[in-house]
């Protein structure tokens, strides 16, 4: 088999080589046995490096490890009550109890998911009376929350539009880049966040969308932009739609916060509906993680508005073909919860109310934070951008060094881009947070923005 030299060769670090020929090595523990067994199995994965911690989910892990009493987790975007406890919506509890009583079976869903869910989710997004639904022009597939929906769409783009690029906002949710990278879809950024105003760089955004090659995909956050909390105004949306139409781009919406931003499901869908009304073909990814608190159930949908029902059928069939080798068919539990909640008028009404309360709590916390900052900060800095931002997150304008100061000195956990999750903030903690922000902003080492 192998020469003795090869038999004792130690595999290099880095990429391990599984080529033809004997793979041998010395196992650290069993040195004595190497003499007897010429070929000692060493793992093929010898050279697999440790992956870096996820910037968002890693924050929660670091928070858990912190023993300080004052610690505050403003990292991950999961809603918390005023008592900073996770919140399961009452309407979800009701739905689950109902489902338990019904005792339905657990058979495989079709690849495209639960029909009742698909109908409900499309109606929620586009409006039950939307002509595109009546005309059967929308391909809807239940998928694994927002991530799964985006990934299916990305895989579809890679297969059918292999030369097209996706334009993503600068900044955007960190996982967007991972999704397009892993799907091998090239991307570039369009200007979005203006650090000078801590607001939208509208001119930059339009210019960059204009400059991109015709027929690019433009990834837009339907509402409550993550991580900045900065949304275009209705007038700005019209102009964005104009330039997208002019350049024959494909609008691709990520709707992770419908109902959670303003408190109104319809209002939060208005950007999507604006584009659809113009007769455009549109991709829309949805998630029920936040607005129904179904984070761990992984429930969402990918919708593609097509020019005709025939096109929609073809597109749907190809999305199914991409889903089958990923997970075969989607998980049933979350879909049933959504279908039950949306399908029952009483529960649907209750849901809307709970959503208003969640969005309302966030608005209150924003106000209190702003009030605390304005009262405590003597520098005259304008903190009103906090009130103009919307949704779960606020882009504070703190840079990485300043964000580190928030954590190291104040035990406040956030992502290094300066994003705080207001969903993790209570009224009681606003003043402490204000102190920390003011301190980090003015005294934290590094260039203040």
């Amino acid at each position, binding site marked *: 088999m192998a020469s003795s030299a090869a038999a004792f060769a130690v595999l290099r670090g880095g990429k391990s080589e599984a080529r033809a020929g004997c793979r041998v090595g010395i196992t650290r523990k069993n040195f004595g046995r190497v003499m007897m067994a010429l070929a000692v*199995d060493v*793992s093929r994965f010898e050279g697999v490096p440790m992956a870096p911690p996820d910037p968002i989910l890693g924050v929660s892990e670091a928070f858990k490890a912190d023993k300080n009493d004052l610690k505050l987790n403003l990292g991950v975007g999961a809603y918390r009550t005023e008592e900073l406890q996770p919140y399961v919506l009452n309407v979800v509890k009701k739905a689950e109890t109902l489902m338990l009583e019904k005792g339905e079976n657990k058979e495989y*869903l079709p690849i495209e998911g639960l029909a009742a869910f698909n109908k409900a989710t499309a109606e929620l997004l586009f409006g039950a009376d939307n002509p*595109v639904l009546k005309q059967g022009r929308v391909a809807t597939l239940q998928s694994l929350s927002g991530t*799964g929906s985006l990934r299916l769409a990305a895989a579809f783009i890679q297969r059918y539009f292999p030369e097209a690029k996706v334009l993503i906002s600068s900044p955007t949710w960190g996982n967007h880049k991972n999704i397009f990278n*892993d799907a091998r879809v090239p991307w570039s950024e369009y200007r979005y966040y203006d650090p000078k105003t801590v607001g939208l760089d509208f001119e930059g955004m339009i210019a960059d969308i204009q400059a991109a090659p015709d027929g690019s995909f433009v990834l837009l956050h339907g509402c409550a932009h993550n991580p900045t909390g900065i949304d275009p105004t209705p007038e700005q949306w019209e102009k964005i739609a104009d330039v997208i139409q002019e350049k024959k781009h494909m609008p691709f919406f990520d709707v992770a916060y419908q109902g959670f931003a303003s408190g109104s499901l319809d209002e939060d869908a208005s950007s999507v509906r604006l584009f659809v009304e113009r007769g455009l*073909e549109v991709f829309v990814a949805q998630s029920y993680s936040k607005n129904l608190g179904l984070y*761990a159930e992984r429930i969402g949908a990918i919708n593609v508005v097509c020019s005709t029902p025939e096109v929609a059928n073809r597109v749907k069939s190809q999305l199914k073909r991409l889903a089958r080798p990923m997970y075969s068919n989607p998980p*049933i539990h979350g879909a049933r919860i959504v279908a039950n909640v949306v399908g029952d008028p009483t529960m649907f009404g209750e849901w809307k109310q709970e959503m208003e309360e969640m969005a309302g709590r966030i608005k209150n916390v924003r106000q209190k934070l702003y009030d605390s900052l304005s009262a405590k900060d003597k520098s005259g800095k304008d903190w009103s951008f906090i009130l103009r931002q919307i949704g779960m997150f606020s882009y504070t304008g703190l840079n990485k060094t300043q964000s580190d100061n928030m954590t190291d000195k104040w035990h406040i956990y956030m992502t290094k881009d300066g994003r705080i999750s207001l969903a993790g903030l209570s009224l009681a903690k606003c003043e402490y947070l204000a102190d920390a922000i003011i301190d980090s902003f003015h005294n934290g080492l590094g260039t203040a923005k």
Partner: protein
Amino acid sequence: MAMSRAAAATGAVTRRRLGATAARSMASWFGHVEPAAKDPILGVTEAFLADPSPDKVNVGVGAYRDDNGKPVVLDCVREAERRITGNMNMEYLPMGGSIKMIEESLKLAYGEDSQFIKDKRIAAVQALSGTGACRLFADFQKRFLPDSHIYIPTPTWANHHNIWRDAQVPQRTFTYYHPESRGLDFSGLMDDIKNAPDGSFFLLHACAHNPTGVDPSEEQWREISHQFKVKNHFPFFDMAYQGFASGDPERDAKAIRIFLEDGHQIGCAQSYAKNMGLYGQRAGCLSILCDDEMQAVAVKSQLQQIARPMYSNPPVHGALIVSTILGDPELKTLWLKEVKGMADRIIGMRKALKQNLEKLGSPMSWEHITNQIGMFCYSGMTPEQVDRLTNEFHIYMTRNGRISMAGVTTGNVAYLANAIHECHAVII
């Protein structure tokens, strides 16, 4: 792509509010997207549902049915659900999934007292049932062993080909099924193992091979394992039927245990779709045995890195059911009893089908029906015979001659035997 957008470009005017009519006159982006072929397995059930005949029998889909032909939710599952409703916390699972579910899954596959578990040498993540586990592994293989291929048995579950293809890992096949005997082509299999380049990756069905139901014997597994050692091949086990094949999960994991004893470092995909009846919950696990704890941590981190841009983290409900059942001695005992019950019913139906065919005076040998194991029986029928079964007798199955024994009941076994006999009699 260029054509449809060029078509849209000619005559394009900056438009404002167009309304629905404009969409119909506008050329679609998706002009070049062809309709995908129907899924061969799921299409069978659709046709079955559409058939009004009172005699119709569905032996197509691979989901367990009771003796009345009804889907089953296990008692242990119902009880687990009762317990977890109210324990309400739907916060994201860690990226790798439920720790408890993973722990229990590893015990099932590697053995309750496995030293590898104690030494923390196994990188494991919760996955989207068997499909998701295979896909994670295929993506991992592509990323870290980009020059490797996957050897897939002939035949295999159709989706295996889709999975490694979409992961962009080149595939080769190896001999497995012997049509003449409707059994294992063992010498063909061993030849292919020997002829494959050293260090190749092989996909093996741990038990209850899908679609043939043909498994190697214990001796044969030992020989395969030995040859794998000689060739330094990597064994990746797809175990979708643990407990469901023989009725005994320990026995069904025998192939894996043999390989572990022989010092192989394996990969394993586990599914709870069949053995716990959790089909739609998508509960499964992917594990890879590593050199040591440090490597296992690194490999797990990379598996999570692959999962993150696919679905972020796995669904909680099915995982909670699994960990509740396996973590509670009483519920686990109940589960073992119920899974044996399902396996026994299938084994009973195999006997009954064979006996019925023999009673009808069929000159052919039907040994393979009881020799094969698990949910499926590879009948050896041709597509034409299958079509006849469907068109004349309203019996629905996949055209490769695969019968899902789970769809056979005391109520329909005689009818099924008669129909099969008729189809064979005419051809002969």
